[in-house]
């Protein structure tokens, strides 16, 4: 079922678009990172660390801004097909149980999301190595893992909304939430206390990448500074609990409310 889901998701268009989004993120970020303006070898050596940081920072930012919404859109379309597509019903004949079918579909989606992030990570890493800007280190792996888990949670949110309302457009709402999250965490520079709403969002959808952002030493992320003392498991636990809740809710909707 998971294998079939990959086939379901990956039409030729989606395959090409997925690669295009990944390549666009990598090369646009490189172009924005002063790599081009500091092309002389001497300048390169001098600003290597700066360029490298800005390149990686851009990758994280644009990946959240572009890749996560792209994944949410693909998830929404897949969810719409799964909840409302008549062809889905032929898979539920011949002995397959609905919960197993649902888990298979989720696994397929999970594989797609992880492969997409893994591809971005590899391409970004190769660019880093080939341009001589630096090496792939564990911290980079760590951030990518967190971002991909975050994508999974947001995609599950899209599945849940499509299952609940049977309307594909509501599945795109998580993009707004994700973008809002990104905005409050990168643009608020003065007020470090955070409003109740910000805190609520932080608790609901923790991207859990702040320990890495802190290393980058950019004051943009100071809204998250207040959480620096919290152990990393705090955010991870919330994210996993949130994803688990969405998974179970979507499963329940898939089993009982496929009504059209």
């Amino acid at each position, binding site marked *: 079922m998971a294998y079939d889901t990959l086939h379901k998701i990956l039409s030729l268009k989606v395959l090409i678009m997925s690669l295009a989004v990944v390549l666009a993120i990598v090369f646009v970020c490189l172009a924005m990172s002063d790599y081009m303006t500091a092309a002389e070898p001497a300048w390169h050596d001098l600003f290597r660390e700066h360029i490298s940081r800005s390149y990686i920072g851009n990758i994280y930012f644009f990946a959240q801004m572009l890749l996560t919404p792209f994944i949410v859109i693909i998830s929404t379309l897949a969810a719409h097909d799964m909840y409302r597509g*008549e062809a889905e019903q032929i898979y*539920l*004949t*011949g*002995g397959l149980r609905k919960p197993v079918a649902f888990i298979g579909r989720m696994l397929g989606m999970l594989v797609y999301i992880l492969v997409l992030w893994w591809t971005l990570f590899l391409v970004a890493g190769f660019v880093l190595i080939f341009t001589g800007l630096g090496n792939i280190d564990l911290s980079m792996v760590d951030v990518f893992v967190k971002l991909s888990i975050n994508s999974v949670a947001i995609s599950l949110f899209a599945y849940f909304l499509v299952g609940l309302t049977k309307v594909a457009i509501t599945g795109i709402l998580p993009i707004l939430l994700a973008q809002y999250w990104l905005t409050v965490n990168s643009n608020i520079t003065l007020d470090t206390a955070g409003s109740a709403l910000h805190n609520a969002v932080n608790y609901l959808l923790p991207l859990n990448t702040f320990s890495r952002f802190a290393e980058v030493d950019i004051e943009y992320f100071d809204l998250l500074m207040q959480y620096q003392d919290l152990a990393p498991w705090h955010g991870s636990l919330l994210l996993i609990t949130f994803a688990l809740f969405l998974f179970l809710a979507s499963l329940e909707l898939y089993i009982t409310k496929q*009504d059209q």
Partner: protein
Amino acid sequence: MCANSIVSLQGASKWYGKKPGVLDCNVDIPRGKITAFVGKNGAGKTTAIKLIMGYLRPTSGRVILNGVPRTMLTVNGSIGYLPESLRFPELYSVNQLFESLAGIRGLRYREVKEFLDREAELLELQAYRKKNLRSCSKGTRQKVGIIQAFMHNPQLVVMDEPTTGLDPAVRHRFFQLLRQRQSQGVSIIISSHNLKEIESQADYYLFFDQNRIIEAIDAEKLGSGGGTCILVDRDISSTLSPKLANLSATVVEGCKVLVSNEDFLNGVISLLIGAGLQVKNVLPRKSNLEDYFLNLLAEGSERG
């Protein structure tokens, strides 16, 4: 519930919010026969099919499958299904799709290969087996859908508008396939709004109108329910029609007198001979499905 029914709908209704899908369906669908759901578009056929398949939960009433009440978790192990509209993953070839479906249904591809070859030959699908589904026509995809519905050797096959997109030759072969499967004991439910096509193909008919089952009838009864046709030597519509109109269940159409009630047959013949007409032939009149259905609709609208 009838002991020999594969599916029973017991007071089953389905509402989509305030809009009715089907209302108060009470019917036993016979085992080992081809049952046709007949009705206009939007009459409730597809909703009834989805209730049977368990993809919709009845708002009230229940669906009994093989003697067991259906729940949303009932597994459709021995059921094959062809929905009204099909969308397969486009990067699959026809063979890859069959392979994938076989795997999902717990079958080994080589176990079903012989079956697939045979059915693909019958439905003229062989040439497309290695083709990408994206490049296949609607008719070809429909053939794929038909074959997959029988792939796991189900005891009940439910097909919603199965002949959509099929050319006449393949349509003929499709009905051959249904008969062949039915002779092996498979129960088949098909829905159609094309009455000419489905006529004489089914053993049992369920007529739908305005979200209700308005009639359930055996094909044999349907065929013999047309009464008798008397052919005379000249047009009598203007001369004898008023007299014959006094006899109920008698209709005059030019040189034909249609008698639907056998009790009046001798009386009508005597009257015709008495009027100096020559009776050329007396034939049993087979009711055609379309007439029967239209009569049902007319009766329904008269009842209001």
